């Protein structure tokens, strides 16, 4: 049972690493902020949760496994919140800067 | 391994020193101080490491690393954070009078 679980866990971990790598490539290659945010956060959340689930058989006993599950649940709640806050901040900031530019253009 | 740590520590410390000497922005000076502090912490921890040692939490599964230096480093980190806060308070207070963060302008402190 344990070797099978470890094999499945290894597959999960490598899938997670692949997703994280894809997310980083998206951050590097996509053209503007919002697409980068889109590529980065979703793939990275999925990859992180996959890695945490795959690490369960390797954790060595249930205290470690519970901590891993806690990290996974925390990620599932907090990561979308953080990316929402960042996206909103980028949007508001660009709106404010555009308004400032327009005011400057009217003045001079 | 020890040689690698020593090279990193000396490079990191002199990079912090270079920042403190040449940058005119006060925040950059604080960044340089932080880098120098990190170099010292890295030196202590890499000096505490013993090959094939385990983390100093009982029960040990073998030989342990040096716990005394870990305690010193812990104290140093907390005091470093207080230092940093005090430095920021000084920058904010000076900025209230001079309206800039240029260290070259803060000449009035000269006695």
């Amino acid at each position, binding site marked *: 049972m344990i070797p099978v679980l470890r094999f499945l866990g290894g597959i999960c971990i490598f899938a997670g690493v692949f997703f994280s790598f894809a997310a980083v490539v998206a951050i590097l290659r996509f053209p503007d902020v919002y697409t980068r945010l889109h590529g980065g956060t979703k793939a990275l959340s999925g990859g992180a949760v996959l890695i945490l689930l795959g690490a369960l058989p390797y954790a060595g006993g249930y205290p470690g496994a519970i901590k891993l599950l806690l990290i996974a649940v925390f990620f599932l709640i907090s990561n979308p919140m953080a990316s929402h806050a960042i996206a909103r901040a980028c949007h508001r900031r660009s709106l*404010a800067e555009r308004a400032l530019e327009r005011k400057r253009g009217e003045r001079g | 391994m020890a040689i690698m740590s020593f090279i990193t520590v*000396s490079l990191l410390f002199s990079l912090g020193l270079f920042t403190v000497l040449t940058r005119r922005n006060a925040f950059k000076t604080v960044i340089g101080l932080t880098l120098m502090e990190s170099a010292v*912490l890295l030196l202590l921890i890499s000096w505490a490491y013993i090959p094939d040692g385990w983390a100093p*939490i009982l*029960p040990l599964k073998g030989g342990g690393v040096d716990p005394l230096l870990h305690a010193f480093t812990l104290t140093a980190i907390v005091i470093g*954070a207080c230092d940093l806060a005090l430095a920021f308070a000084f920058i904010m207070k000076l900025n*209230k009078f001079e309206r800039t963060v240029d260290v070259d302008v803060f000449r009035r402190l000269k006695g």
Partner: protein
Amino acid sequence: MSEPLLAFFYFFILVTAFVAVFLEDLLSSFIALSVTGVLMATVFALLRAPDVALTQAIINSGLVTSLLLVAYSQTRRTPLPSEECPECPFWLQWPSAALVCTLFAVFLFRGLYSLACVRELGSAPAHFLANTLEETGALNVVAAILLDYRAFDTLGETTVIFTAVSGISLLLAGGRYVHSGRGLSFVVKRGMALLTPFILLYAASILFLGHLTPGGGFQGGSVFATVAILICVVYGTSFEAARISPKTKETLESGGALLFIVVGLSGAAWGTGFLANLSGPFLPGTPGSLFSGGNMLLLNLAVGLKVGAGLSSIFYAMIKILELEGDSWQS
């Protein structure tokens, strides 16, 4: 122990430090600096120092960033004039500094190289590793050193924190608080309401299990301070001032100091000395349970109260407006 991994981490630390120094945009150098701190924490973890790694990760990513951002947003930065200094020729500026720093690095490495030898434990660390369980009843040797063998040092350290808090309050006295309830968006507010109890519970577990696992008073107190800062940022200052008033923070901080002193004096009253643990009035308990390690639980609580209240009142002193006019869109 994987040497190539450690070498790569060292290289990465140097790269991030270089970027933090030489990037023009300050916000980006703050991000690079926090990456440097995280990498330091990872290297500490790789070098088998989980306590130090926990402290570095907490202090670096919670407190230093918030203090940096507050100080950065509270300062007015008129652009620096880059005129040539007449009495200071070009070669006396960064080339000579680079020369001095290179020489310094070479000599520092030479001095450290002469230290390199086969490391063995000294007598005092070997004694700590062998006898901590009998002499203190704690499992975490670092916490035992901080709170039992060298508890007087910890008292001095809390005094340093107290001095920093009073110095900052003195320096930034006379400002005006802005009471505002704007905060962040609705999603973040509701999500924080879901997450805050868990973060607080985890901080309490770091604090109270400090003698069994990595953690302790400093780390738990720093997480408490970060939660207070986060509440202030997410819900606005008026909410934070209503829930956790500065008066409460003062009381908590003084209460922590008082608890430390009382625990110390109880050992003196027993007749064995200031801050005596198992030789004093405290019981060892069963090793591995919550109530073990004598007075360590009480001392962790005292240090945690002191650090948490102290660091959050530092933040509260720094968010005061020092000058009334001025726009906030400078960057």
